[in-house]
Structure formats: structure tokens, C-alpha cells
């Protein structure tokens, strides 16, 4: 063999060794990237990556773009449908793949969103274990942060849910609670509009309290307190009661006014006429009283 050839061969062989090492390092990096489930692509997304990296025919880009656009629009529509049906708006979902091996995948998820007027942030670990045809999903390390003005209502429920990792129960309860709050707000607003001279909402329409007062009966206020309790097990129970604030002078003027009995009377009205009926009758009689 000639010398120059030998030199060239040696140089090329060295270059090949270098390139092979670089390619292997890049392949390892790519494998790491692909462990992240968020970036494991199929179908249209796979075509898109291929066209971005210069693989595939040149004219393909437009077709890939329009197909992907169509798919994204379908997904946006789907998300709107799910949001409407589930009554929960999700703003963000971050998924970090902690472990991805053959049969077991573990992800750390952080969801943030809102249910009516309540903002929440939920973090948990999701493990999926494949056992032949079946796969079992488990949630662990649940952490719930609820942005609520009324944290006391939720504190025992939230700690119980975090302990039992019952993500589904948390959202079912949140939704039910939010529905009851919406009912209350709608009812309060309805009465305020119908009887503006008597009804006021000192804490706003999302508050627990509706006040009934009359200009000619200064100092005498009837409060309707509509609280919504959440039990440790996630049971949502509305409680409506009537509270009276009547100054002593008025009591002396109207000795037959059954002050103590007002609350009980209201409860029986509730049973007979239902929430709205009972409230309406109180308001009407209050109006007429003077």
C-alpha cells in the first residue's frame, strides 16, 4: 500500500471514530428527550417534526401545516366541550415525566384552573403500571391549594382529600359547592332586583348574607344567612337561617313580635315553601309590615 493512501485511510478512520462518538452522544440526548411523554409524538405531530428537520419531500410543509391546523382546531373545540360539560376551567397543565421504564411510568402533574369563582392549584404524582393487557393508575402525594375567601369551610375537607389522594372527590365536591354558590348568588340577586327597597346585599352577591331592612324601621334588620358547608367526606350541605337584629326599643313597642320564634318559624316556612318561597314570603311580609 502506498504511504499517502495509508495516511488518508488513517485520517478518515479517526474522523469516523470521532463522528461515531458524537452521533452516539446525540442519540443518547435524543433518547432522554423522548422519555418526556409530552414530547412523544404520533400522527400529524410526527409529520410536522419530520418536515421541520428537513426529512421528507420539500413541498410537504404546507400540507403538514394545514393538517396540523385542522387537528389543533378540533382539539380546541373538544376542550371547549369538556370545559362546558365538566364545569371546570383548566388554565394550565404541566407534566414532568419522573420515570419511564418498560412497564411503569411516573409523572408529576401540576394543574391550575378555576371552578366558577374559585381558583385552585393541584399537584400530584401519577403512576401507571402495565400488567399485560391491564394497566393500573394510581395517584399519590396530592397537594391542593384553594384560593377561597372562605378557607375555613374547606380546610378539613382539603386535608382529608390530600390524605386519601381522592382527586376525583375533590373536583366533584368543588363543582357541587360551586353550583350551590351559584344558586345562592342567583337567588339573592333575583330578590334584590325584585325588592330593591327592602333587600340589600351587604357583602355582595357572592356573600352568605342577604339583609332585609326598611327605611321606616331603622335599626331593625333581618338577616338571611345562607351558608354552604362542606363536610370532611365531601358532602355539600346548604344551611339557611334567619337572624334578627332588633333594638330593644322596637322590642318594647312590639311586645308580641315573636323574636325568638322568628328563626324557627322561618325553618318551618322553608320546609313548606322551599327556599325561594320562604324568602319571598318573609320579604313581602316585611314590606307590608310598616
Amino acid at each position, binding site marked *: 500500500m502506498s504511504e499517502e493512501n495509508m495516511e488518508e485511510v488513517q485520517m*478518515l478512520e479517526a474522523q*469516523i471514530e470521532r463522528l461515531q462518538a458524537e452521533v452516539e452522544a446525540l442519540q443518547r440526548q435524543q433518547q432522554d428527550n423522548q422519555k418526556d411523554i409530552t*414530547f412523544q409524538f404520533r400522527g400529524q405531530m410526527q409529520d410536522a417534526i419530520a*418536515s421541520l428537520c428537513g426529512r421528507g419531500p420539500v413541498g410537504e410543509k404546507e400540507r403538514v401545516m394545514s393538517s396540523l391546523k385542522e387537528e389543533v382546531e378540533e*382539539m380546541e373545540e373538544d*376542550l371547549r366541550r369538556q370545559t362546558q360539560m*365538566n364545569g371546570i376551567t383548566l388554565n394550565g397543565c404541566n407534566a414532568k415525566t419522573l420515570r419511564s421504564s418498560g412497564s411503569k411510568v411516573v409523572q408529576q402533574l401540576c394543574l391550575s384552573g378555576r371552578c366558577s369563582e374559585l381558583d385552585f392549584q393541584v399537584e400530584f404524582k401519577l403512576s401507571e403500571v402495565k400488567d399485560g393487557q391491564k394497566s393500573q393508575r394510581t395517584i399519590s402525594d396530592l397537594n391542593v391549594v384553594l384560593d377561597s375567601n372562605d378557607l375555613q369551610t374547606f380546610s378539613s375537607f382539603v386535608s382529608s382529600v390530600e390524605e386519601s389522594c*381522592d*382527586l*376525583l372527590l375533590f373536583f366533584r365536591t368543588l363543582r357541587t359547592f360551586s353550583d350551590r354558590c351559584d344558586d345562592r348568588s342567583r337567588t339573592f340577586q333575583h330578590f334584590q332586583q325584585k325588592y330593591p327597597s327592602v333587600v340589600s346585599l351587604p357583602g355582595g352577591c357572592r356573600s352568605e348574607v342577604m339583609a332585609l331592612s326598611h327605611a321606616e324601621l331603622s335599626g331593625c334588620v333581618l338577616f338571611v344567612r345562607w351558608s354552604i358547608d362542606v363536610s370532611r367526606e365531601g358532602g355539600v350541605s346548604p344551611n339557611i337561617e334567619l337572624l334578627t337584629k332588633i333594638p330593644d326599643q322596637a322590642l318594647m313597642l312590639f311586645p308580641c313580635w315573636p323574636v325568638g320564634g322568628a328563626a324557627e318559624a322561618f325553618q318551618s316556612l322553608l320546609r313548606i315553601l322551599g327556599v325561594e318561597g320562604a324568602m319571598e314570603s318573609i320579604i313581602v311580609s316585611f314590606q307590608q309590615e310598616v
Partner: protein
Amino acid sequence: MIANCLEFSSGVAVVGGVANDDAAAKFKNLYWMFVAQQRHYSQRNKEKDSRNMEAASTKAGVLSHLSLLEVQARSRRTQPQQQSRVKELKAKVEALKVQKQQLEAEIETHQNLQKLRLSLDKQCADEEDVEMEEDSENSQLLRLMARHTQLKDLLHAHHLIGGYDIIKTHQGKGVCVSLATAYEGVYLDTYNLEIDLKPTVKIGRHNIPPFIPVNSLAEVNDMQTNMRAFLDALSQHLNAFAGRKQQLKLLREQHKSVEVMESNVLCSILVLMFKVPSAKTAVLCTLDYTDHSSCLPTRVHFECEDKQLPDSDQWKKNCSLLMETPVHTALTAMKKMGDIV
């Protein structure tokens, strides 16, 4: 010499044909004579050659030229092999370079996608409007891809939190919903339900077990006008049932010493037999789950030969324990306290 050769060859023929000692000996003699003669002749030839070479020193130039040509001819045969090796290596280098470029492009795209996704997440969290910049086709495609990953994650999240995974069927004339169940962090069975929307809102096919009163729940919750209230109530019942069923499964797995005397498909009644170490008697425990939308019993009742036992402080505590905590957890606590075996 020729005569000898002939004799030698005939001797071989003889040996080949007949195997006897005489012939073999004759063959051997002939063979050794032949070799000796060859040696003698080659020696004589060498002497002749060197004399010839010295005499023909002028012929040396021609000879060396001839031998050079011979070497060149031989090397021309091996050189194409060297050249093809170089070509092969060059081709390999090119292939590796292409592969490297490809991988670098993919990794860079991946990084860009990650960055875009992060900024999209931040924009959504801060509820800013997504900026629409005028830019290249490539970055438009990248942005679209980032949105795709975000949507996929959000849809998956809706599914994970127990969403109804609603899909349209029959060209919009109906919908299909999935009701997921879970207990203590473990996802259990999923039930599917088809609801016809046209001409009237009515329940279609489903795989919900018959002991869950789907139709009456639909009526009570006014499915026609408020589908979500109906689905929420149904989901609550299904999850409570799944929870009770799971408790029974865990009880059987974790507490083999406790005998399950009676249970039903709805898991609304459970009768257990406890062995009490101290009293050496058995306690029959009945758990009634009359509220089918709850995982906890509404009534706990003990029966024992020793009439005093259920009224003891310890067993009153156990009664509350069984009312307030899942049965398998309660039994673990009772075992720890030594009340049951």
C-alpha cells in the same frame, strides 16, 4: 535420467498394483535414486547460472527493468483495492455527518418546542393574549406544535380529574359520556353512557350495573334541563359503590382472620365475624350502608354472646370508628388495639 524416470514411474505402477515386499523395496530404491539425481543436477545448474549471470552483466539492466515492471504490474492489481477502501471510508464519513446533522436538527427543534411551550403556559397562566407575530413558516409551525402539546395535556388533565370525556355521536343527535371511578387514589372501573338528544333527551345504551338506579336519578335531577346535575349525582353513586366494593376487596386481602359472612352486589350490606382474643368469643358485626351515595355505613351493629361487650367503652369506640373510617382501615386500628384478632 529419462530411463530412470520411466523405471521409477513403472515402479510406482507396480507398487500401485501389487503390494508385496519386493516391489516396495524396489520402489524405495528407485525413489531415493531419483531424489539424489535431482539434487546433483540442480547443483550443477546453479554453478552454470552464476557463470551465466557474470557473463551476461549487460543483461542486468534489462532484467532489473523487467523485475520493476513486474512489481508495478503487481501493485496495480492491489491499488484499486486501496482506492475502493478510501472511497468506502469517505462515504461512511458523509453518512455519519448527515446523521449528526439530522440529530442536531431534531434536538434543536425539541428545545425550541419546549421553550415555546413554556412561554405559552406562562401566557395562559397570566391570561395574556397569545402574541401573533409575523414570522417564518417554520416558527409558525413550531408555535402550532407547542399549542398542540398544550391542548393534549389539558385534555388529558380533564380526563384525569374525572371529567365526563363527552363526545358527540350520531352526527350530533346524541352524546356519549364516561364516568370514571376511583378510591383512595386508585383508578377503578369506568362506566359509559349514551344519551340521545334528538328527538328527546333520553338515556340510551350503557354499561352501568342494574342496581344503580340510573332512570330514577335522571328523573330526580331533571336530566332534560340539567344534564350535569344528573351526571354529578350518577357519578357520586357510582363512586360510592366503587369505594364500598374496593373496601371489601381490601378487607379480604388485608384481614384474612375476619370472616365475611354476608355481602351483596351493591355492597350496601356487610356482615363480618370478629374473633375477640380476650373474651374468646366471636362478635358478629353488621354494617348497613343505606345511603348509597356514601362510602361509609349509616349503621353499625354488634352482636355477641357476651351481652355486655357491645356496651363497653372500647366497643362503643369501635362502633364510632367503623362509622367514620373505611372498614379496612378501621379493622387495622382495632387489631392494633388488640380488640380483635
